[in-house]
């Protein structure tokens, strides 16, 4: 039954992908992109990756779509110029695709417990997590503790990308060009009754759910990345409903900049605190007398750091696009 569902969703995914590439109206292409992400999230969930599904639904379908719409509002809605199918790329892609499919016959079947990927490192994580870290969600344990270096690196990539966007979009815009349609004008959707009433009801619950996902990440699917995405999604919804000015009054720009920096600082500080207390960098066991309690504390702080930076970066990027349209 699961297999049938999975095959069905994957077929839908391919159809949506063709639709995205075919659509000449960029707005429809972006909307199809949102649908594509939701289908992808369902497939991730069917394949037992609850944390990834949550992230994909919040980021892929929510935040990415808003960023694309923000860029569309500042550029153009239609793909110009007619180009027929280009046979050279089609030929090359078909050949490469055929080779990939041919190679797949040597792959282990999906779900095969003896596949090489399941035999090395992963069993150790599954076995040692209850003793060494003792939190229920093994994904969080690996993310924040066993592979804390990776996550720190990823966090700094996000940090750098956020700074890059702020740099690129903070240069003064040429004055002579008028932006035709503004997605995020100062009025927001205040004059549309249904989105206003329903949306305003949803905003506090989305933010609350984000906080739940943040602090419940040790026990169920969740953690800093998902929480950051959810909280920013809630606040972006607020900005769309009430307008840019009201949103900036609620969460000012300087506060967002503080969030970006403090998250990255918090993560690094936890790592250095481990060094000062006699352990190695990002070794949480020395943070408390009891190594397991130390791990709990370390993971909690690190996840908060991730959540702060992700929220700050995503919201700053949104406001950077929105400010460009004014």
């Amino acid at each position, binding site marked *: 039954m699961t297999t049938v569902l999975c095959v069905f969703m994957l077929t839908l995914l391919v159809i949506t992908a063709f639709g995205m590439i075919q659509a000449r109206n960029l707005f429809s292409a972006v909307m199809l992109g949102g649908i594509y992400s939701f289908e992808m999230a369902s497939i991730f969930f069917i394949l037992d990756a609850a944390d990834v599904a949550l992230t994909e639904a919040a980021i892929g379908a929510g935040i990415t779509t808003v*960023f694309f719409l923000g860029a569309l509002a500042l550029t153009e809605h239609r793909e110009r110029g007619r180009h027929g199918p280009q046979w050279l790329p089609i030929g090359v*892609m078909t050949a490469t695709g055929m080779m990939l499919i041919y190679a*797949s016959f040597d792959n282990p079947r999906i779900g095969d*417990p003896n596949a090489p990927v399941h035999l090395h490192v992963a069993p150790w994580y599954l076995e040692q997590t209850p003793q060494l870290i003792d939190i229920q969600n093994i994904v969080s344990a690996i993310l924040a503790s066993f592979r804390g270096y*990776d996550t720190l690196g990823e966090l700094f990539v996000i940090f750098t990308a956020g700074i890059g966007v702020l740099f690129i979009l903070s240069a003064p815009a040429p004055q002579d060009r008028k932006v035709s349609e503004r997605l995020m004008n100062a009025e927001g959707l205040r004059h549309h009754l249904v989105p206003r009433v329903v949306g305003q009801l949803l905003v506090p619950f989305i933010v609350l759910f984000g906080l739940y996902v943040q602090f419940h990440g040790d026990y169920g699917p969740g953690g800093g990345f998902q929480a950051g995405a959810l909280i920013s999604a809630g606040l972006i919804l607020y900005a769309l409903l009430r307008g840019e000015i009201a949103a900036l009054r609620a969460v000012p720009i300087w506060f967002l900049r503080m969030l970006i920096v403090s998250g990255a600082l918090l993560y690094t500080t936890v790592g250095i605190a481990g060094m000062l207390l006699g352990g190695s960098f990002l070794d949480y066991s020395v943070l408390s007398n009891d190594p397991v309690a130390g791990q709990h504390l370390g993971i909690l702080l690190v996840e908060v750091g991730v959540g702060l930076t992700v929220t700050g970066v995503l919201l700053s990027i949104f406001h950077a696009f929105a400010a460009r349209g004014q």
Partner: protein
Amino acid sequence: MEYIGLFNYWVFAVLLMIGMYAIIAKRNLIKKLLALAMFQSAVFLLYITMNKVDGGTAPIIRADVQEQVFSNPLPQVLILTAIVVGVATLALGLAIVVRIHETFGTIEEDQVYVRDRE
């Protein structure tokens, strides 16, 4: 039915190739970025396909259940962070596209070349 276990890999290959085709063949910069996102999520699909174990559940330990079979948590961790990094870098790309549109008044690649030479 023997090959149904490989269907995910085939979809991965098809999505990867659709994305790559659009990156090469489409002239519109936003379309290129959409295709880049599609290419990226095809890779995510490959990783998450590999994490599945028959009869497994999501890797969350429940104290009251014995002898649980878990799917592999490691690919999930890698992809979880990759998704968030993906959106941050995508935003960087979109910001550059916005600046290109402000400078050249178009987001079609061939017209940008023409106007750049003027």
